[in-house]
Structures are given as C-alpha cells and as structure tokens.
C-alpha cells in the first residue's frame, strides 16, 4: 500500500499552521484597523442636513460668536442647538425670501422644529459636559476643528476614548486662556509648552481620568 501523504505534506502542514495564525492575526488586525477607521468613527464625513447651514459663512464671513447660537455651552452639559427663533432673529430681515431658507420659515410658521442630524455623537454610555471644558480653557476649535472653514459641518476628530484621554492626561498641550476659547485659528502668543503649564495651574485643571468621570 502506497503512502497517502508524500514528504511535501510536512511542509504544507507547517505552512498551513502558519497561514492560519497569520490569517487570525490579520483578521484581528483588520478588525482593529476598521474599528479605528473613519468609516466607523464617521470622522470627516459630510452629513446631509435639512438645511445646508454653513458655519464657514456664519462664523468665518460674518464673525458671529459661537455662543450666539450655542447658548448653553457655558452653563450646561449640552452646548445647545439654537431654536428656530434664533435663526429668525436675523433671517426675518436678511434673506427673508431666499428659497434655501424656506424650511426655517416653515418651521417658525408652523411651529414644527427643524430636525438636524447629530454630527458629534458620543455613545450613550459617555457623559460629556461642555460647560466645564469651556470653563477650564478648552477651545471650541480643539475638539471641533476650524469650524469657520467648514461649509458643511463635519466631525474633525475620532471622538474615540484614546483621543479624549490624550487631553485628559496632558491638558497642558491643549489648554488656552479663557478669553480665547471661542477663537478660531488660535496661536499661543508664547510657546504652548510655557503657557500650557501655567494655565493648568491657574485654572486648577486636574484632567480626571477616573472611569466615572465620563461613564456612569
């Protein structure tokens, strides 16, 4: 009776073992890569909104302060999306016939809210508070990017935990004077390495990293 496997089977079996390991490793790696990709995090994705609202125009061109619309950013966990009334403060006078603004007028007329799509969406088990970050000198730009250059709003950063922790562990790299919080394109007058440490001390920043700081 002849042998079923010839000698080359030894190599093949070893190679296939290695291949399986590689495959498993590769799959795990792939999952991790996908998990961190912008496909999952939705970073830099443009999102269709009921109205093509342009931050580029309102912030960049018109120079409207962030807090004119996002009124509760200094007092509440939620920065606030303006009620239709806020839009109409100006747009009952300006561009009050523009077809692009019809949904706003309709909302105001019919008392039906605009339904915006959330761009920065943290998972439901994460509790972020805007007011304390603003109080401690975190610029809007640090997380939200150059909003004044975005014709359509997009999420600049991954919003993943490692990204949060980078700042919570090293707040001195990102902190800015409170007066500059809403400034777009802020450049520290003195090197960040100097002013950062100073501000961390002055504002009493502790950069909490306990789990219950954000998860509860």
């Amino acid at each position, binding site marked *: 009776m002849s042998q079923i496997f010839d000698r080359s089977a030894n190599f093949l079996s070893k190679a296939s073992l290695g291949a399986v390991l590689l495959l498993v490793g590769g799959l795990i790696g792939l999952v991790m890569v996908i998990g961190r990709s912008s496909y999952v995090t939705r970073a830099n994705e443009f999102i269709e909104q009921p109205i093509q609202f342009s931050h580029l125009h309102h912030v960049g061109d018109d120079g409207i302060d962030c807090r004119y619309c996002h009124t509760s950013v200094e*007092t509440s966990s939620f920065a606030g999306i303006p009620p239709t009334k806020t839009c109409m403060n100006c747009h009952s006078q300006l561009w009050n016939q523009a077809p692009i603004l019809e949904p706003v007028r309709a909302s105001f007329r019919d008392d039906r809210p605009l339904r915006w799509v959330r761009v920065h969406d943290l998972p439901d088990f994460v509790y972020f508070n805007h007011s304390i970050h603003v109080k401690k000198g975190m610029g809007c730009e640090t997380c939200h990017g150059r909003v004044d250059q975005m014709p359509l709003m997009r999420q600049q950063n991954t919003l993943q935990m490692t990204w949060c922790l980078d700042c919570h562990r090293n707040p001195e790299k990102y902190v800015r004077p409170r007066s500059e919080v809403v400034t777009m394109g802020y450049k520290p007058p003195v090197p960040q390495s100097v002013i950062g440490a100073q501000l961390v001390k002055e504002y009493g920043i502790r950069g909490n990293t306990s789990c219950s700081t954000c998860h509860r």
Partner: protein
Amino acid sequence: MNQSNDIEALRARLDGTRGREYWRSLEAVAETPEFKEFLHREFPSNASEWLDPVGRRSFLKLMGASLSLAGVSACTRQPIEEIVPYVRQPEELVPGKPLFYATAMPFAGSALGLLVESHEGRPTKIEGNPDHPSSRGATDIYAQAAILGLYDPDRSQTTTNLGEIKPFSAFVEAARAVVSGQGSKQGGGLRILSETVASPTLAAQIEALLKRFPAAKWVQWEPVGRHNAREGSRLAFGEYVEPQYAIEKADVILSLDSDFMCAGPAGVRHSRAFASRRRAETGTARNRLYAVESTPTNTGTRADHRLPLKPSEIDGFARALAAQLGVEGVTAGTVSDAARKWLGPLAKDLQGARGRGVVIVGEGQPAAVHAIGHAINAALGNVGETVTYTQTPEAAPSDQRAGLRELVGEMNAGKVDFLLVLGGNPVYTAPSDLQFGAALHKVKLRAHVGLYEDETAALCQWHIPEAHFLEMWGDARSDDGTVTIVQPLIAPLYNGKSLVEVMAAFSEAGARAGYDLVREHWAAQTGLSTEAVAPAPAPQPAATAPGAPAAPAGVAAAPSQPLSPFDREWRRWLHDGLVPNTAFAPKPVTLQAGFAKAAAPAGQGLEVVFRPDPSVYDGRFANNGWLQELPKALTKLTWDNAALIAPATADRLGLFKGEADEAFASKAPVVELKKGDRTLRVPVWLVPGQAPDTLTLHLGYGRERAGRTGTGTGFNVNVLRTWDSQDVVNGVELVATGDTYQLASTQDHWSLEGRNLVRVATAAEFAADPGFADKRELVADRALTMYKSDWKYEGYAWGMAIDQNVCNGCNACVVACQAENNVPVVGKSQVLNGREMHWLRVDRYFTGELDNPDTYHQPMPCQQCEGAPCEVVCPVAATTHSDEGLNDMVYNRCVGTRYCSNNCPYKVRRFNFLLYQDFDTPSLKLMRNPDVTVRSRGVMEKCTYCVQRINQARVTAKLDDRQIRDGEVVTACQAACPTDAIVFGNINDPESRVAKLKKSPLNYALLAELNTRPRTTYMAVVRNPNVELEPPSASHAEGEEGH
C-alpha cells in the same frame, strides 16, 4: 421529621445562642440543607445555566454567531441620531439641565408635598419638597413609584362607551343630558362615588352640584382609611377631628396597633419626628416607644418594647391601661398575663412623662379604642403638648362605611339613575358581601373615571381615563391642612381628564380646563382680583434643586407684564409648593361622656386582620412593577401576598407535615380559610413576632384587571372581608389543603452569613461600654492585604454613614434608587432565581425569641471599599478605583464574568442575566433618567453612590470656583429617606456631617475583619428599654463581649 419538631428545634437553637444572634429567616436558623446550598451557590442551582435543551448543532450555531457578532460589534457604526431643538425655547429652560417643579401627590384623603425633576419636559424623578411640612424633603414609596405610574403603558388611553372609543365631548353631552333630566327629581337619581376628597376645589364643585340637586348624594369610599379614627373622634368629642401628633416632643410613645411611621402620607412626617429623638447624634435625649400590635409593623420594629396581642385583646389592654391611669369612664377589661406585666411599668412611664408622652391608636382598631386613646392623652395632659386636634384634611368627613352600604342599598332598589365613580375601584375594593358589582348592574347609567380600565370600568358603560397627578392642575390638602396647588409636569399622555375637569362637565358653566377651575376657586377663596394681563398658564419651576440652598422665595421669572394681585400670590404658591397659612389651627375639643362604649366582645378562634399591602396598598398600585417587586419590609415577599402567621400558631395547627426540607422553604403550604360560606385559598408565611392565633391578610392582590404587571398576582382577600368585619374577622376556620405555592421572598438572598453584622446595646450598656460597637473579634492587619489599598485622596473622598437607630425599613430608599438609576424590574420567576436587580437592599434581621423577636433594618448599598475585592478580580478592568474613592463600574467594558460579584463579601453587585430593560415601549423611554446609562444584557451593575449627582455637583462647584459644600451632593436614597438615616458627604472634610458621624463611638464597618475598609459604615443601635420591663442582665452583657 415533621415540622412540629422543627419548630421545637428552632426554639432550642435560639435559646442556646450565646449573647445575641441575628438571623434573617427561619431557614437560616434551622440551617436547612436547602438554605446552605442556596448560600454557597450565591444564585440558586441552575440560575446561571441555560436550561433549554441545547444540542451540539445549536450550540455551535450560537457560538459561531456570538463569536462573529462579538467581532463585528467592535466596528458598529453609531446609528444616526437627530437633534430636535425648540422652535421657541421656553425662557427658564436650559437644555441638559433639569428643572424642578413643586407639586403634591394626593393620596387617600391627604397629600404629600413634592418637587419633581423634569428633563426637557419629561418628569423623571420625584423628591420631597423641603419647604412642605408633610415632607420636609422626604418621600414614601408611593411617591417614588409615581413616576412609573405616570408612564405605565397599561393606563387607559381613551374615553370609551360600551367599549367603543368616543371623544370626551360625547361623554359631556351624555352627562349633561342626564343632569338636565334630573331637574324634576331634584337629582334624586344622581349619585357620586369618589375616593376620600382632599381637594378643596373638587369638594366645592361637588357641593355646588349638590346644592343644585338637593336630593343627589355624594358618597366617599376608601377601602382602607381613617374610618375608625374618624368615628373614634366622634365618640370622644362629638365631631370629626384630626389628631396632630408632635412626636418630636414626646419622651414616651405608646402605639396601640398603629403603624404611624409608615401608614399614609403622614408617615413621612411622623418618621422624621420620631427619628429626631433617636439618631446617633441625639445623645441621651432618646424617646421610648412601646408597641402593642397584632401584626409586626415597621413602627413596631423600632419599638423598645413590643407586645404581640391578638387584635381583640388590644381593646382590653387599652381599657386596662386607661383604668390604671385613672381615666374616668373606662372600666378595666380583661388582659392576658403577658399584658398585665406590662401595665404597671407602662402606666408609670406614661405618668412620669405627663405632657411629654403620646398614645397613638392604629386604623385597624375599633372606634372605641381610638376614643380611649384620646381620653388617655387628655388625662395625661398630652393634649395641647404632643397632641392637638384640628379639622380633618378631607373636605367632607363622613361615615364612609355606612355611606357605601346605603348607596348599594339604593342601587339595588333601582333608585340610582346615574352613578359617577370618580376614581377608585369599588367593584374590587368594596366588602364582598355588599356585592357591589351586582348592584352596579341595576344602575341605569354608570360612568367610571380612573387611571386604568379596571374591574369597575369593565362594569360601567362609560370609562374616562383619569389624568395622573403629574399631568393635571388641581389642589390638595395634606394632613396638617397645608394646601398645595398640584401643577402638571407634562401634558396628559393619554388625553386623561382630571376629576376637577370631569366634574366641571356637570356644572352649569360646562366643561373647562382644570387650570381655570382651580384658579377660579382660589381667586374666590382669597378674594383677590385677577384683573390685569393674565400670564400664560405655564408651570412655575422651583428655582432650586433639592439639597441646594433655597433661593429667595418669590416670583421665579421676572414677569414682563404687570401681574394681578391674585397672580402675584398664585405664582408664589406654585413656586413654593404650598399656600401659606393654610395649616389648620388647633381646635379646642371636649371629651364627651360615654366615649368608651362597651368593651368589645372577646375574639374567638383564629382572628384575621386586614391590612393594606405594604407595597401595592389597596390594589391601586398593583400594576406598578417597582412596587410589586419591592421586598416587603417584614416578610421580604415580592409579587404576592400571603397569610402571615406566627410560627407557634402554625405549629399548633399542624400546618407543616411535610419533610423538613420543604418546611420553611419558599414553597409555602396553601390553606383554606373559612368563615361561614366564604372561603379563601391562600399560602401561609411564617412571621416571627406575629400575635398568636392571628392571621394577617394584605389587601390589594388578586386583581383581575390591573394591567399586564398586576393582573393575577397574589390572592384576593376581599373574599373574606365583609361589611361588618372590615378590620378583623373572628372565628375563622383554617384547613390545610396539602397544596403548596411558590412565594418569592428575598430574605435569604445576598446573605452575609451573619458575621456580627448588627450591633445593639441598651442605653445603660452603651453608657457602661461606649466602645461596644467597634469591638472586633479579629483585627485585620492593614499590611496583610492582597489588594492595593494605599490610595491617596487629595480632593474629595466620598463616604456614607447609615444610622440603624432610626431606619424603620420603609423602603423609600430602594424605590428612589430604582427610579434614579434606571434599575429594571425582573419579574417573579427571576426573583425566585435570585436575580432581582435592586442596587440597594434593606436587610432585615431578627434576634431573640421566635415569638417576639427584636427586628433591625440594615440598608445595604455598595460599600465602596478601599481594599475592594471586586476590583482585583476583573479581567478587563471594568471595575476600578476612582480618585475620590468610588469603586467605579464601567458597563461598556464589562464582559460579564461575574468574578466581581463572586468576590464581593457584601453581595451588592447585580448581573443582567437576561435583557431586563424594556428598550421598546415608548412611554418607558421617556421615564428614564438621562444621566444614567441604561444597562443591557450580560453586564454587571451596582450602586455608584449616585455618581451622576456627584459629577453634577462637581461641575457646578467648579463653574462657581468653589469646593462642593457639605450636603450639596445628596444621593437618591438619602434624599428619599424620611428618617434621615442615610448621610453622605466628603469624609476628607472634618466638618462634614458624615465625617462627624464616622467619629461617633457607634460607628462600625461591616466585616471589618476582612480589611476591605468600606466607605459605607453603620451606626450601632442603642435601645432605650424601661428597666422595669427589661432588667439589665449580667449574662447579656457578658454574651455581648464574648460574641
């Protein structure tokens, strides 16, 4: 071996204990094999196993699926979410910040003042109103559970006529037709049946209708209420009055079958008053409580001396005591030997505290005993000191029992053309011999207004959904007379109508909005003008959160328009949650001769006591899962009622003939109770401390149309309850059936195996040995630990102190925790598996004699150890130590190994074995606290010390550039506690209340010998017994030390 021997063995075991031993259940004392197995398994056998038959194929399928899902879940994209801003944002509202509105919960002819937390228009949590005299910031279980009641998806949702959906206007039309048809008869065929009305507006409306139709009648009916108390006050004083007790002033208190700390909304006020003389901080000014009771109550568990007597014997006891005290007009009744021993010392103690004592009689006692109680208080000079009398909080006190019987007679005689049932469920709650349901059929037109399509609704042609009190404008008086305007937190979810709105449909002016009706009533009452620009009918937020310092009282929002004089007042009322100066003034009363009536005939045979259920009350809360699953304070039963019986009586009746293993187990023997031709099959449950030959039956179960949660739970004991025996039935025959019934009691769940957990001393022992509480058998060497525990806390270090001296086991904390932390309900079968999810449980321990043990309550939240056994065993670091000393639990990291729970010596961790949360029902989504993650299947969870409240306070303090003040963080359990037994704060601050308490000599940690160094510590109990009744025993003290 039969049970009889077992109970003997139990006694022997208890007698043989050295010093004091504390036990939770008879099984634990008996050390039945079942109990031991339960203990060692942590969960019952097979609780953690998948019991459905699983073949190899399906196993592979499941594994394959779960593996691939596990992989995929890591890269799920978040679903798209919307943000829907306001069109015009209300002025006071800041998105993301809750508002608090003051209102009140009307309940059984009284009310409790509340502050309700609202998130963007959704009420999510109820707190007590610190400014309201009935609450002073605390609540009871019913108020806490009202949130679930509001969002209950089983509430009735539309007006129906013979099952057909109709608009409310159709009912108004029909009603007006009836009313106009009654003109010629002066309303002779018109009857209104309501619950006890504590709303001045509603009472005025009904009275106006009665004025228009003098022959119409209004009957109030409450299945359990202050009937006997009212009749007792009439016997004693010739008029209906409400006794107001100033328990905080009393040195000696005697409760005659009264559960004054937990029955009704006044319980909250009484609990706090009692606790003010009893806490660890009180020092030597302790009061003394004597309780004579037929069935163990929460109040009785706090008594220094407790005497179980049959209900019929209490009458004799009261008379004997009155005679001993020299009360005129009372002759001593017969008393048992045990009771006679009490009389002398008790009378002496009461006499020694003239003007500083009080006698309180329970609702279940006949009117004559109430009258005797009043006479004793008068004779002891307590009236005007610890007791005052005022008018009643209900607008029209009446003999409700007689009223209902008369109404049924008229219904049977065909005299009633139209019956309007304003709330309540008389078909279920009326005494069974009245046959209310059958009589109802003889009424031509019948309409029911209620929260549910219940048993009564099923027999009425019209049903109108009632607005929940959180959805309506109204008003209500609390026990002391204080009026609160009830303001809505949300528009009616299901088009419900308030009773005031329903009544308006019958008025000449016709149907109108509740807001206008209530305002109009109060404008007329105050005589103030409403002329000026009327403001929009927006509810007024109370500007402050509970716990935060009160903002200056006054108008919340600066009005842009001028306000009328009435509106100025109105807005203040809404903001403060009460109408000032409406508390009743004391009323002089004179005792009338002949108040004591003749002594009641001696009871014969078995006596059955009817009591409202500690959880579902008279059945009105039967569909509330939080209350159904709440372990009742004394029995720890959930989801059922049972006939409570003393072990000795059960033994005498030979109820347990089976094998020893089955004897005490939750498989309870079913008995048949017979009285005449009425029979009731009900399981029995052994309760140490129950009076001999006395069975207690709780009302409120066996509902047929309660809703998905409540229908079919427990047993309808109304079957035995007849009109002339609504409190007690005598001479009941008990027959064992041989059947068993599975009851779900949690008393042996999460056992700590009795390692010196409760520590008690008498006042004398404490004075002699102030360090008794923290004496340890084993002293742990700090260096000897496997766990990292050298944490440094530079900022805050949170801690809790729980005072067992005052905790009466009312359970408000448990429901408050459930509401605050989105804790799910699991159902009876899961409770049987030991899977109830309460983050905070109240352990109840007995000690002493089997027939009359002392009882202690020990609330058990997470102990937040410094050397936490749970943290070190988690393979994925899902539970970690925070820099403020909390044992954080991170749900999104948890993979469900359950090692942490296994390693927790306090057994405070809860695992989501199945998907207990309801993620689908829309109304329940509105209910949840948005600040707390809603947990899914496969995740461990536990008490967090309400970390969401800590974080909120930290942010608020940092925004103001200051430290968190003491008392600024109030945990949900602490806020709800009527006795203020739970104190929370920063133990790094030596000036904080919690830090001071932890320095008390009474402070001790549970299982300190394990070196876990818990952040939650307990205050040992100091009893204040009368030395004449309990001579200090040398052996006792010795046993204490040797323990």
